[in-house]
């Protein structure tokens, strides 16, 4: 288990990284990577869905403050917090999650991480860009932005996992 102070530090770091670095990078083609879903993914296993959604809402609102998006990030981040328990159940390992420290690639392996993160990023980005355009006639832009940004977001997720969340050696 990981203590509360670590999660609070992560919360602040993810917001600052999103608001001051990733939100400002310019990749062209309307690509807009969003890394804060990783924080929601990596919250402890035993949090109830309601607590999860409230944390996600606070996260989204904080990112909204940085990006002048007026609630767009909050909505998208609440939606993945709502689906997280279902997605975790869908990809549950044979013995459940009890023996694992935290939902990270180091603990559960990359195939688990990629499927869960992939599905969450897809839902998040699709909802985000759908709300941003809010017109079905713009479906091409919505899909283009979702897929390109989603791939980049996943790549950044994997890099963060490789750099910061290596598998802890058993003592």
């Amino acid at each position: 288990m990981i203590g509360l102070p670590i999660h609070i530090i992560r919360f602040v770091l993810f917001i600052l990284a999103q608001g001051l670095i990733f939100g400002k990078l310019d990749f062209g083609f309307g690509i807009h990577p969003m890394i804060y879903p990783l924080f929601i993914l990596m919250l402890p296993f035993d949090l109830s869905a309601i607590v999860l959604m409230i944390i996600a809402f606070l996260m989204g609102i904080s990112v909204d403050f940085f990006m002048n998006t007026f609630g767009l990030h909050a909505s998208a981040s609440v939606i993945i917090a709502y689906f997280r328990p279902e997605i975790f159940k869908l990809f549950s390992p044979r013995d459940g999650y009890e023996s694992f420290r935290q939902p990270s690639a180091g603990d559960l392996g990359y195939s688990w991480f990629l499927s869960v993160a992939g599905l969450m990023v897809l839902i998040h980005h699709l909802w985000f860009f759908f709300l941003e355009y809010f017109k079905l006639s713009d479906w091409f832009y919505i899909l283009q932005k979702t897929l390109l940004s989603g791939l980049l977001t996943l790549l950044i997720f994997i890099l963060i996992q490789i750099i910061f969340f290596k598998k802890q050696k058993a003592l």
Partner: protein
Amino acid sequence: MRNLIAFFQRFRVFLVFLVLQLIALGSFFSWMSYPRTKFFNTSSAVIGNMHSWSHEVTKYLTLSEANEELQRELIELREELPESFLSIDAKTALINDTLYKQAYRYIPATVINSSHQHKNNYFTIDAGRLKGISAKMGVVSSNGVVGIVYDVSDHFSVVKSILTENINFSAYIEGSKAFGIVKYLENDPRRISLTGISNDIAIKRGSLVKTRGSSGYFPQGLIIGKVDMLEPLEGKPLWDIQIRLSQDMRKVHHVFVIENILGEELERLQGKIKELN
């Protein structure tokens, strides 16, 4: 009653989800109604300060570009000084500085946070109410129009970029004098659309598009861009005009906020039009 409580217990996760979504979406979809969204933006002091720290670090990357721009503008202004004119005939010299009344004032500011990849884009500048900025002032760079001030705090302002769907200010095309309304419809940060020009008016590709000055945000004749693409709109007697912006919105650093000293007078006068009808 017991049934009701049972209902809430059963669906409490979904109900919390619904409430949070309503708050978020309510704030997002009312972003156009100005006072309610005042809360959610970077002009609030803490975030504004963080953006200016981050700008302190990154501003050195664009220093040479900004210098060149300022130098070019300095040369342009220097060429207008009386010293750079040679009087041809001493008798016809005319001192006319009392014939003009200053109508616009320029307040310099630096962009500390910006976006251009969204459908509606905003940017933050490091000047606010204390420097005399208020909402609905025009913002220009040395290359052209960039936006309109949306909200101010004491030290920062949020500017609605020209890349916003309902930016809606009027502009005219030099040469034909036809005027229309500027909107951001395509998803290309290099181009904006000019709508409402009837397609019986001849328009040349490449002609300059300038501000009309009708709503008092900008003085008349500020450059916006050039006509880039011209096609008749399907099913309507209108042109579909794409303007290539003269200021690349992906690289805006130094801007000027325009204060219209006579703005109130203009507004009061134009407000009477409604009373006449």
